[in-house]
Structure formats: structure tokens, C-alpha cells
């Protein structure tokens, strides 16, 4: 394992320390229990958005704390759900009285810990569960689909509504719409190494890719030989379009997300391929996002998220945001 580490047990603490120092104009980091909150108090009457999850997906979620997005984020150990006391403390810290909306990715550990945190918090609260990963079959009998990169879009869009005075119910409703309107498909070329493990999570050949990979290096639909980008992108988009079934000329946001180890140069190439393929299918791309937003440590690979946009979604997407990882309009 080659990583910037002093001591495996201090990995998270030291990384959070650095994050706090680097972005002291926007956020502050609280330790024991760990949470990241905005530097300024939530204004009265504004719904507070709190997300969280295992670490290793940076900038998600701490990088999205700030004006127009989250009020707080609770980082767990690498790839492990955070603990209920973190969510309780974060909620008590940021709630201005208008209630707390927890944004939770659909994994058993996250669901259970957020649920317990919500039970321990006495204030008004509700939650949104994201499950945009089309690689996994959905079913009411199972854990269902994973929450992946569309969580970033949910946090941005709902964050804007909360900022402009949306109620807890309205925020939840919009979040659920964004989640339902999105589909994501990921591909990995390499594995990733969890610091505590010290070795890669899975083995993969030099000429292989994992199609439908999760954001923790969990296996996906199938293992395949690597192909030209156009073919990979086409297969990814087909899986998404199969699920999302957009109308002809429907407006969409196209989000190419890096898994951490793939250079932006390649992500833009993927964006180009995706544009061409979507254009040929009569799907209109009206907004874009390209970069490393929902990563899996140093994994090489990318995910594509397509979000069907209506006026409400577009308006809230365009609204100003100022966080460590996303900033425009202010």
C-alpha cells in the first residue's frame, strides 16, 4: 500500500484536520463526535440538511457543506457508516427550529445508523434515501439499489430549495423527485485500497473492468474485457436509459463522475462520447457536471448519472452555491 499515511488509526482524524484548516472560511470540523458544519449558524426558519456516510468518497459529503447545499456532514470510518451519536450531535448543532432533513444513501449500515440517530434526536426530522444505481436490481424484498453519485445532485438541488425557504416537506418531496429522476451506472478499471486493510478490495486483471461497480469497490453486474470508451459509455448509457426511459427531447443533466483515480482528461472524453450517443437518441443535455465528486478512494473508473430535469430542478441547480467542492453564482 502506497498512501500518505502517518498511522492508520489517525488517518481519518488527520484528514479531517486538514480539511478544516483548508476550508476554514466555509466550514468547521467538530471532533468526538465527528461532524462538519457550516462556519455560520443556520439562519432561522431554514431547514437543515445533513448527510453523511463512510469516508473515502471525498469530496462527498464534507465538501458539500456550505451555502446552498448541506448544513452538516457526518463522516464515518473509510467505507463504514457513521454512528448515531454523530447524526444526533450534528442535528442539535445546526437545527434552527425548521427541522432537519437527513440525506442517506441506501446501504443497510447507513439506514440503521441514521435511523437510530433520528430516534435519538428530539427535534423535527425526516429523511430522503437515495438509490440511483441502475446496476442493481430493485425489489421491495431486498435492500434494493445503492445510493451513489446522484446523491450529489440531490444535495445541491434540495440545498438550494432549503436556502430559499422551502419547508421540510417540500425539501423531502423535491429530493425524492431528483432521486427518482436520476439513474447512475459505474465502471471500474482498478480496485481501491482501504487503509485499514492495506491491500486492494478486489483483484482485477490489467485488461479487465468491473461493469456496474459500487462506490466501495463492491462487484457490479459483470466482469468484462476492457473496450474502447465509446463502447463502454454506450453500454453504461443503455443501462441508464433502460431504467430512466426519458422522453424524446426531454431536458437532462449529464454528470460524469470520476472514482478518484481517473484523470479529468479522460472524464471529458467520456463526456464527449456520452453527448454524442445521447444526441443520437434525441435526448437534450441542458446542464453538465464533470469531475471527481463521489469517489472510491484511488479507484480508476467513472460513473455516468443522467437526471431528467423540469423547471423546478433546473432553477435549483442553477442557484448559487459556495462549498469546498462546488461553487458558482457567488
Amino acid at each position, binding site marked *: 500500500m502506497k498512501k500518505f499515511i502517518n498511522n492508520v488509526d489517525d488517518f481519518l482524524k488527520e484528514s479531517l484536520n486538514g480539511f478544516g484548516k483548508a476550508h476554514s472560511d466555509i466550514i468547521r470540523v467538530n471532533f468526538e*463526535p465527528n461532524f462538519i458544519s457550516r462556519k455560520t449558524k443556520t439562519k432561522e426558519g431554514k431547514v437543515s440538511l445533513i448527510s453523511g456516510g*463512510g469516508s473515502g468518497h471525498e469530496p462527498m459529503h464534507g465538501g458539500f457543506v456550505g451555502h446552498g447545499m448541506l448544513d452538516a456532514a457526518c463522516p*464515518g*470510518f*473509510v*467505507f*463504514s*457508516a*457513521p*454512528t*448515531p*451519536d*454523530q447524526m444526533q450531535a450534528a442535528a442539535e448543532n445546526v437545527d434552527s427550529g425548521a427541522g432537519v432533513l437527513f440525506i442517506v444513501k441506501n*446501504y*443497510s*449500515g447507513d439506514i*440503521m*445508523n441514521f*435511523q*437510530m440517530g433520528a430516534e435519538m434526536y428530539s427535534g423535527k426530522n425526516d429523511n430522503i434515501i437515495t438509490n440511483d*444505481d441502475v*446496476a*442493481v*436490481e430493485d*425489489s421491495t*424484498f*431486498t*435492500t*434494493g*439499489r*445503492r445510493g451513489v453519485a446522484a446523491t450529489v445532485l440531490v444535495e445541491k438541488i434540495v440545498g438550494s430549495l432549503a436556502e430559499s425557504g422551502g419547508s421540510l416537506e417540500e425539501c423531502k418531496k423535491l429530493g425524492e423527485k431528483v432521486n427518482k429522476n436520476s439513474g447512475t451506472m459505474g465502471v471500474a478499471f482498478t480496485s481501491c485500497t*482501504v487503509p*485499514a*486493510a492495506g491491500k486492494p*478490495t*478486489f483483484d482485477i486483471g490489467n485488461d479487465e473492468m468491473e461493469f456496474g461497480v*459500487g462506490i*466501495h*469497490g*463492491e*462487484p*457490479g453486474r459483470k466482469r468484462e474485457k476492457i473496450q474502447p470508451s465509446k463502447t463502454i459509455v454506450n453500454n453504461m448509457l443503455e443501462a441508464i436509459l433502460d431504467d430512466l426511459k426519458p422522453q424524446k427531447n426531454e431536458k437532462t443533466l449529464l454528470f460524469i463522475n470520476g472514482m478518484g483515480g481517473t484523470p479529468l482528461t479522460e472524464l471529458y472524453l467520456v463526456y464527449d462520447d456520452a453527448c454524442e450517443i445521447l444526441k443520437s437518441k434525441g435526448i437534450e443535455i441542458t446542464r453538465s457536471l464533470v469531475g471527481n465528486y463521489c469517489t472510491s478512494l484511488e479507484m480508476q473508473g467513472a460513473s455516468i448519472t443522467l437526471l431528467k430535469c423540469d423547471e423546478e430542478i433546473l432553477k435549483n441547480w442553477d442557484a448559487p452555491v459556495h462549498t469546498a467542492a462546488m461553487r458558482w453564482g457567488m
Partner: protein
Amino acid sequence: MSVNFLISQAKNIQIVINENAAEIEALDQNIGDGDHIFNVQRGLKLVVELENDIKNLPLQKGLNMIAMKVLSGIGGSSGALFGTFFMSMAKTPDLDGNIDFNKACEMVITGINAMKERGKADVGEKTMMDVLIPVSEKLNELKSGNTDMNEGLSEIIKIAEDRMLATKDMLATKGRASFLGERAKGHIDPGARSSQLIIDTICKSLINK
């Protein structure tokens, strides 16, 4: 059962889990994401380290402190589930007096029921509940019956092992492995394996005592 009993069990379990850590990690890498073993190890370490703080406390208080430590110190599914287990054990009525075998069974049953509720997983879903639920059912039988305790403990060891092995051919419907579909088949569930090792260690330490 006493706080000291819990601590000494945690120490025994820690040794066994550490001995089998590589196997559990490998199972989790096959069908999960590899964090289970680290969470279990971290949890055991935290409980063992609590010794000086809790060794003189009454059982209920000790259990609650263990629950809070586990809940806030582990994370992931294991933290929520084992935290729930200890928290619920502490809620079993009449913990002030002497805890005999029947009372201890009742406590464990209460804890496992709460885990089942929290995780919304039942038998047959390729999780740790595949081991824990049948064990809890057997404890319920033992509690109300006249079976010899040593015999009962041996039966539990056998049940835990059989049920752990049975997860190998299951399709997972809950937890991280559920995302794999058919590809999860052929691998024992790591949570079922760690739970089985815990039960095995406790039962073996009690036989002929």
C-alpha cells in the same frame, strides 16, 4: 452473568476473531466491501478497553455503557446491530438479582429480537441473522425445558455452525451482498461467520463449568 463475565468473554472472543480475521476479511471482499472484520475488531477492542470503567458497575449500567461504546465507536451495520443488541439486553426486566442460565437466555433472546427488528432481516437472507435467529430460538427452547445445560450448549454450537455454512448457497437479499445477485452464491456470509465464532467461543467456555 456479570460485567466481569462480559469482559472476560469479550477477551476470549477477541482472540478467536483475531485468529480468524484473514478468513472473514476474505469472505467480505468476495461479497461485500471488506469493512466487517475491522468493525468487529474495533468493537471488541473498545469493549475490552472499557474494563476499568465498568468492572464494578451493576450489570444493567455496564451493559448500557458497552452499548453506547459499541454504538458510537464502530459504525457500519455491525455497530448499529451490536449496539442495539447490548442496549436491548440492558432493558430485560429484573437484572438486579442473580442472573441464572434462564435469565441469561432471556437477555440474549431480547437482544437478538431487537437486532432482527433494527436490521429488518430474517432467516434466509444471507446475513448474521441466519445464525443468530436459530440460536435465539434454541435458547428459548432451553430456557423453558429440562435439557441438560452442557447438552444444550453443544446443540447451540452445532446450530450456529450449520446455519453459518448454509449461508454459502444462499442468495443475499439484505446488506451489501444483496447488490450481487447470483454472484453472492458460493460464499459464506462474513457476518454469519463472525457471529458463529462468537457463539462458539462463548458456549465452549461455558461447557462443564
